[in-house]
């Protein structure tokens, strides 16, 4: 039997070259989705195979990797992907946003500002922002080529007519470098402003849909809106019960059957860092005790 042997960072060199070339073109054409011959990965499509392939193609021995899902380093899929790279690339891992050189994420952008020495890799399920308005690839590709985004504006405007607001809470479309309309992956729209003029390189990988796209550092990223209905961020009107933060994105935790609820930071590293600095929320235990719990 052919006993499987695997290369550094799992992918073979031929595949890495193909992905690397796609990444370079993606950076050169900000917001444009570059087709690439995505491979079957040892985790299912839809679970981060695009992000994993991008990470595997860029990762080197001196990198420090952080993986988050829903903002947390401790969600099962984040752990699973982090372990995969520890095993296949022997790379150093961290939960610290500040210390990481490569951060792979699903559904969130870290709260702490990113810096120039970092690459943020997004896992993307449906890279085409026009897909739910026009399911045909041949059509959406033509719209991007012509910069013809009327359909998207009509959709957003219909929301306003029906609900009084743009009814998109996540995967909120953006325009990159004043040219391509881009799907930011299903991050809450709270995170959209962090993409604009960001010092870090942002790479997006969609494995099942076979697309890679990018936002270079210091690039304009504008959330689509209307003059009379400007883009607004949304977060729960509360503070984190653990660290007291008032400006972070919060998860709602239902605490009993009577519907009681509390709110905690979605970004676990941000929350723990604040707690270590002495910040306290309404429900927090003394810090040391919490650590060992």
């Amino acid at each position, binding site marked *: 039997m052919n006993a499987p042997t695997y290369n550094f960072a799992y992918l073979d060199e031929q595949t890495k070259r193909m992905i*690397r070339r796609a990444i370079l073109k993606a*950076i*050169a054409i*900000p917001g444009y989705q570059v*087709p690439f011959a995505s491979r079957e990965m040892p985790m299912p499509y839809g679970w981060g195979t695009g992000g994993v392939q991008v990470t595997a193609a860029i990762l*080197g021995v001196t990198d420090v990797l952080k993986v988050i899902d829903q903002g947390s380093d401790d969600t099962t899929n984040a752990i699973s992907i982090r372990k995969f790279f520890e095993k296949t690339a022997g790379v150093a891992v961290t939960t610290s946003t500040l210390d990481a050189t490569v951060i792979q994420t699903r559904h969130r952008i870290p709260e702490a500002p990113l810096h120039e020495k970092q690459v943020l890799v997004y896992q993307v399920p449906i890279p085409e922002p026009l897909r739910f308005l026009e399911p045909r690839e041949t059509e959406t590709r033509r719209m991007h080529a012509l910069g013809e985004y009327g359909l998207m504006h009509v959709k957003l405007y219909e929301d306003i007519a029906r609900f009084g607001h743009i009814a998109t809470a996540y995967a909120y479309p953006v325009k990159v470098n004043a040219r391509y309309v881009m799907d930011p992956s299903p991050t809450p729209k709270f995170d959209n402003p962090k993409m604009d003029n960001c010092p870090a390189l942002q790479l997006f990988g969609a494995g099942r849909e076979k697309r890679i796209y990018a936002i*270079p*550092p*210091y*690039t304009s990223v504008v959330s689509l809106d209307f003059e009379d209905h400007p883009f607004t961020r949304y977060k729960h009107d509360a503070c984190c019960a653990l660290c007291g933060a008032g400006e972070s994105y919060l998860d709602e935790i239902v605490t009993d059957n009577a519907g009681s609820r509390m709110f905690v930071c979605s970004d676990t590293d941000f929350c723990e860092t604040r707690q270590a600095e002495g910040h306290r929320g309404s429900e927090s235990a003394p810090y040391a005790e919490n650590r060992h719990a």
Partner: protein
Amino acid sequence: MTTIAEMPAGFADKVLSAQSTFRSVMDAMARPGSVQRIEAASGVPSPMMRGSAAIALTLFDQDTPVWLDAAMAATPNVAKWIKFHTSAPVIAGSSVCSFALIADARALPDFEEFSFGTGEYPDRSTTIILQVGSLTEGPAYELRGPGIDGVAILRASIDLPDLLDRLSLNAKLFPRGIDLVLVADDAVVAIPRTTRLTAKEG
């Protein structure tokens, strides 16, 4: 005739050298005007430079047709080395090449001779690897665009008198266009199609 034994070597450590070279090129492309260094060592067939040899070993393969300028094609050394180490087809027509290797900037063909990609697939465009005299000395240029925090200054000795005109024409084609990678010895600077170049006054 060169035998395989006489041919300059590839990377000693293919995997890690390709990775570190790619990161230098990626950083160069992501931060136009910044000077990145190629650390990986390999054999270098004349007249290629260290940096362009490493880029070739990192990005070329059977899926990337490569075009050589007259200076690169003056002897069969470069073409043979590329075919042997990367399996990339070295082709005569520049219009369908993925990469163009240019040793003599003065003889660089018009950009129209290469591929700009299409409106639907602007990624199917040529990346020109242009060897230049220096990426630290020479006239100063101001660079603006994605990847640059305001303005970046590049001092470079690029023997291409109509560089700025060419780049401004290239900019008008966006999203189609040519991406440039400048190489001087082990130094690499990228000028993707989004970068706007002007001569720095004074």
